[in-house]
């Protein structure tokens, strides 16, 4: 995937168009994904109803993130000082390459024989597993969904529900192939297979790698949210705990989590709380019976400061990666997670990917939206997601405009600025539409391939109005 960045211009867009086309024709897959989300919508609505005022809770959540992100210059050093005071070690990574090198060095120093890892999208972003494997380190994804994706050799399909597109039969077959287990159709049994498989691996691992959901500045703790308990185990049993986090995950107060943790769970997974919300501050303390000897935190920039430098879209750093915007997005649900070709899929991915990987290659994600706004409506931290898609389009038109498109819009301005020309153009269009429909006119042809087009009326509104003698001005 990294290598592809250097490919021909527009490769990402071409791939997107191609994959989208293939995917939307796979009605079975689309229905399956839609159906899998059905339960989510029901439980989300039930949990939301328990909030005495969800909208106020959203305000408070966005305020907590806004005030932290906008004081990152102050809070990031404060967090680091407190984290180090707790005995943790901090490593700074300007980009993906630096982060990979830091982690590889730590793993080497730890003389790691086995690495266990819990779900961490930031590690997907820096392609960590590939780097570890290249250096000969085996790494096991312990989150069930990530484990399934690892066995399938695929990245996560959805950054919260990594294998939501996979059917149980396929998982059964996969486990049969890799773990030698007998076929079963029961999600329960499949889960138990993974549970049994993993237990000894936790015990054997000498390095545990996790992500982080929040970095609490005032106490120097990192907060990790998970349902399965695999992150808890990953941070409990191995001798070395390495956590990887983007710098934007800072919040100021421990108390902010009293709002953010339940909202993350409700918005993203329809839960009142995720099963385990754990705060770590450093390695095992004196007097504690277990826990790692070392705790390392790798703080990653990787273009986050570029988003930070854009006040208009700075709020996209408020994202708590709950996944709610994906679940309601008609684009995501129809093209599927892989079509994006990005670490972060869905609406928020379409907003931030151009910042992380370049506007000229990734603006098509912002264009591929009807701007319906369903995402912004559900975002627990009120990121103005769909308007940022518009902002990306504007930025692209400014910095990397398409010549023909720009020309088209210039013509449009000329017509729209002259009512007589607009009326005349409209009349010509209406009177020739019947004929145009039979010709391969670009755009019109794309419409007609799947949709009918009504016949044009003989008279426009303005004509009818004038003839009725009602024109004013």
């Amino acid at each position, binding site marked *: 995937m990294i290598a592809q960045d250097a490919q021909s211009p527009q490769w990402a867009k071409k791939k997107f168009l191609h994959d*989208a*086309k293939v995917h*939307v*024709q796979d009605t079975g897959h689309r229905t399956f994904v*839609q159906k899998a989300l059905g339960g989510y919508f029901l439980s989300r609505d039930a949990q939301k109803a328990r909030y005495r005022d969800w909208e106020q809770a959203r305000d408070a959540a966005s305020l907590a993130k806004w005030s932290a992100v906008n004081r990152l210059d102050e809070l990031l050093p404060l967090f680091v000082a407190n984290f180090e005071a707790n005995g943790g070690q901090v490593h700074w990574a300007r980009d993906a390459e630096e982060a990979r090198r830091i982690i590889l060095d730590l793993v080497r120093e730890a003389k790691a024989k086995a690495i266990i890892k819990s779900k961490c999208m930031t590690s997907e972003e820096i392609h960590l597993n590939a780097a570890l494997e290249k250096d000969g380190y085996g790494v096991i994804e312990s989150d069930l969904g990530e484990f399934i994706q690892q066995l399938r050799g695929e990245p996560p399909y959805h950054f919260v529900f990594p294998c939501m597109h996979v059917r149980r039969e396929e998982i059964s077959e996969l486990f049969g192939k890799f773990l030698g287990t007998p076929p079963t159709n029961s999600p329960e049994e499949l889960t138990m297979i993974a549970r049994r498989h993993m237990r000894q691996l936790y015990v054997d691992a000498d390095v545990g790698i996790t992500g982080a959901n929040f970095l609490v500045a005032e106490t120097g703790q990192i907060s990790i949210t998970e349902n399965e308990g695999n992150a808890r185990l990953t941070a409990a049993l191995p001798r070395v705990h390495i956590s990887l986090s983007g710098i934007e995950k800072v919040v100021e107060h421990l108390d902010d989590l009293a709002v953010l943790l339940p909202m993350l769970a409700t918005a993203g997974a329809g839960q009142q709380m995720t099963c385990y919300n754990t705060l770590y501050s450093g390695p095992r303390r004196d007097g504690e019976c277990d826990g790692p000897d070392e705790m390392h935190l790798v703080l990653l920039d990787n273009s986050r400061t570029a988003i930070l430098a854009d006040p208009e879209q700075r709020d996209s750093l408020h994202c708590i990666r709950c996944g709610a915007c994906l679940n309601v997005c*008609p*684009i995501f649900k*129809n*093209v599927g997670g892989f079509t994006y070709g990005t670490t972060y899929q869905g609406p928020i991915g379409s907003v931030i990917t151009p910042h992380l990987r370049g506007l000229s290659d990734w603006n098509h994600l912002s*264009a*591929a*939206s*009807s*701007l*319906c*706004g*369903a995402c912004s*409506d559900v975002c627990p931290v009120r990121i103005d997601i769909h308007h940022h898609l*518009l902002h*990306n*389009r*504007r*930025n*692209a*038109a400014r910095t990397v*405009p398409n010549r023909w*498109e720009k020309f088209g*819009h*210039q013509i*449009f*301005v000329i*017509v*729209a*600025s*002259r*009512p007589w020309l*607009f009326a005349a153009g*409209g009349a010509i*269009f*209406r009177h020739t539409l019947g004929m145009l429909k039979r010709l391969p006119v670009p755009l*019109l042809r*794309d*419409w007609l391939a*799947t*949709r*009918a*087009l*009504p016949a*044009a*009326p003989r008279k*426009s*509104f*303005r004509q*009818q*109005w*004038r003839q009725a003698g*009602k*024109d*004013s*001005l």
Partner: protein
Amino acid sequence: MKISLFIPCFVDQMTPQVGVAVAQVLERLGHACEFRSGQTCCGQPSFNAGYWDEAREVAIRAIGVFDGAEAVVGPSGSCVAMMRVFYPELLKDTPHETAALDLAARTFEFGEFLVKKLGVTDVGARFPHRVTYHDGCHGLRELRVKDEPRQLLRAVRDLELVECDEAESCCGFGGLFSVKFPMISTAMAEVKGGSLARTQCDYIVSSDPTCQLQLDGWLQRNWRSPTGTIPRTIHLAEVLAGAPL
């Protein structure tokens, strides 16, 4: 109240009957309507495509056209959202910002105007059909208009209003999106159109003529119903213009 009609370019050229119905309903309620023929398009196509410099020229012009109008009323949630929500953003920090905000405060979507501004829910219409209502996304989320059209429909004689299970889903039109990404747009029409049609309604009522274009276009071409009938789309104003027999 003297009402200035905001007839979006698509309505003007392709669905003039919607504009006529709007004027009929408003005049029946005792309000005079004017149509300022200097109006053309609100500039949304360029705005949505990212060509804001171009859109800005069109917007400034439109603001001039509606200068001094007491109330500007349009039969499209999308185009009204362009004027009310996006003109101020487009013209922020320009000399036109105040004028944009001023126009925004005077601009209304048709159904919203009847209910919120005129305080009318029963316009005395009759429409003996089973209908469902399609929320255009801009009306729903930029203007927060959801209940008003339903209030109006519930007051119509002999009309049966049913809801579909994808009520808040997008139809997939999205302007140029529908032709730049036709496969995604069509898949979205399939989801929304199918859900609307499965209510077995006679008509899909909407406040956005371009959503109607998309839904009708998809349904007429693709919908196979067990009963053999394909629901048609109709604008809210046309339903309300239907006088009692």
